[in-house]
């Protein structure tokens, strides 16, 4: 059992007036794979290092299974970590790298040998046991780093952007390898990354951070479909969500959203919520995949057509990206349409939008306007 709880965790670095990490709160359940996602400098690595015990905590607590870990030194927390640079001991061979932590803990020699060879077998490292890290490729070193963590059989795994030093192809295969290992072992895992693809594919839940604060926590699809603010909305999804300015207007039962020179009723929104923002500016969010050249069957009715001016057509093979100008011609929109499109640069066309797929954000706070109270 390993439940990791982070409560009001904060960090101020020496010589800085600002908090690098502000009152972070989250809980990782036993066996869960939690991803800390965010841009560089958002504090996610600092949080991870505080959980590991490698960085002193300014305020707040880190607890494992209910026991507060603040005063406990790193080596006694029963945690293993895989570092971004792998942090292998360059002067020791692979076997010793794997065995070192166990030796330092006084585990019996036969037990160490059994465990090391077992893990090496699992990760395909057996032929390299006698080699030193500088004689290994990047992918092999990564596996040794992973093996070193696995062999300790800890309560919690911590990963600090372990895939960022690998090339793209290797990243995909290693990613799947990591997911497989974690499922087999069932160890609670906290994984830090700035790559949203890794977060979406690997995490049971994602915790998104920006500027030291937690913005949103949730299952990947949940966070994708219901972003808590414009930052999350644009961070997840490639190409990112389009954000445009609009206005809610009209009296009466059904307020209409006006933007880009069209106005239409929104569906799926509680009327009370809409009325409370009546007459005000709103930020409208539309994902590129929710814009259609010709709407797919089953969604014909209720589609809104936006007049657009096509600036660029980017055929990517499997799909096409369109860069469009809407409204009077000063707001840009990116749409993701099928691979067979007849549109060309400079065309004037109309793009279909499903009104139920629209996101609304409060321009003052950047927070999402929830659909129901």
């Amino acid at each position, binding site marked *: 059992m390993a439940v990791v709880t982070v409560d009001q965790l904060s960090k101020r670095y020496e010589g800085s007036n600002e908090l690098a990490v502000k009152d972070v709160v989250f809980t990782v359940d036993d066996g869960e794979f939690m991803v800390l996602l965010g841009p560089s400098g958002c504090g996610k690595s600092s949080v991870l290092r505080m959980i590991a*015990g*490698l*960085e*002193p905590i300014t305020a707040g607590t880190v607890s494992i299974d209910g026991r507060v870990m603040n005063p406990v*030194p*790193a080596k006694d927390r029963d945690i293993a970590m895989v570092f971004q640079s792998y942090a292998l001991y360059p002067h020791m061979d692979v076997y010793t790298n794997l065995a070192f932590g166990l030796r330092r803990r006084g585990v019996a020699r036969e037990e160490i040998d059994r465990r090391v060879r077992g893990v090496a077998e699992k990760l395909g490292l057996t032929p390299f046991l006698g080699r030193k890290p500088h004689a290994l490729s990047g992918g092999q070193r990564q596996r040794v780093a992973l093996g070193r963590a696995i062999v300790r059989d800890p309560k919690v795994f911590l990963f600090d952007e372990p895939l960022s030093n690998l090339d793209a192809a290797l990243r995909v295969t290693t990613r799947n390898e990591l997911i497989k290992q974690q499922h087999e072992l069932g160890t609670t895992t906290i994984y830090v990354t700035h790559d949203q693809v890794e977060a979406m594919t690997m995490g049971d839940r994602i915790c998104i951070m920006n500027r030291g604060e937690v913005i949103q926590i949730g299952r990947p699809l949940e966070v994708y479909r219901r972003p808590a603010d414009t930052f999350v909305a644009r961070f997840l999804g490639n190409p990112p969500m389009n954000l445009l300015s609009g206005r809610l207007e009209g009296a009466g039962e059904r307020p209409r959203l006006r933007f880009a020179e069209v106005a239409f009723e929104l569906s799926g929104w509680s009327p009370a919520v809409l009325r409370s923002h009546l007459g005000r500016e709103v930020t409208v969010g539309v994902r590129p995949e929710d814009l259609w050249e010709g709407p797919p069957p089953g969604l014909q009715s209720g589609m809104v057509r936006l007049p657009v001016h096509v600036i660029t057509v980017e055929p990517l093979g499997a799909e096409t990206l369109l860069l469009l100008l809407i409204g009077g011609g000063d707001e840009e929109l990116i749409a993701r349409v099928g691979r067979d499109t007849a549109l060309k640069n400079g065309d004037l066309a109309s793009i279909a939008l499903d009104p139920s797929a629209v996101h609304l954000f409060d321009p003052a706070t950047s927070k999402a306007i929830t659909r129901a109270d």
Partner: protein
Amino acid sequence: MTLWIAHLRRTPLLLFIVLYTIATGGPFVWVASMSVRTTPEIFANPYALPVHLHWNKFMDAWTTSNYGTYFWNSTIVVVTAVAAVTVIGAMAAHCLARYRFRGRRTVRFLILSGLVVPPQLLILSLFQILLDYRLYNSLTGLIIVYVATQLAMTVYILEGFFAQIPQDLFDAARMDGYSDFEIFWRITLPIGLAAIFTTVTLNFIILWNEFLYAVVLLTDDTKRTLPLGIMHFMGGHQLDVGMIATGLMIAILPVILLYAFFSETMIKGMTAGAVR
């Protein structure tokens, strides 16, 4: 890495640091204080702070005890030698770094082997040689010897640095029609200025403090460099602690002054030869 602290109980560490700082800096403060006290005062209470600051001791040392002459000799010798070895060494380093020619490896090996030549192998013969050429007991002779002994280290440091300057700069300059010497003057020297600073610092400190060659190759009191002068004075006036201290301060002050303003440069300069 920062949890390192938690493993050490901090107080003993800080105590040690303070003690070691006193051990390292204390003696200099002590000499400074003694240099403005008279010898009777010192013998009465060796470690007290000066009550009356006898600045006139410096004047006395400078004139009566000849420290002025010693200081001047040291300055001439060191400034000339450092200037010469920098120019000559830079030229040689530039040549070794930029040009490919037959025998380059031999020449390089030859000059760099000077790094490991022990002074004992040199002084006796240098003594004979300088005698033969009537350069014995002359500042000129000492200057030439200093240039020779510091050449290897200077070339070693500068060549390493010059070799890292991208070849493209030189190719471009050549295409622009610069002559070899102009390339050296306009490209290597300005870009290599940091390394040159380093060697100047290193050579200055080493030669200002140099003792062995000076004591063998100079005998006239009028020619003595500062270290020699202090030893000579010490030999004749062993009990005049106050005066000796003043003399020591005259030797220490230029270095401390430079160090106060250029501590980083000097630290880097002095350790340059050892960093691999």
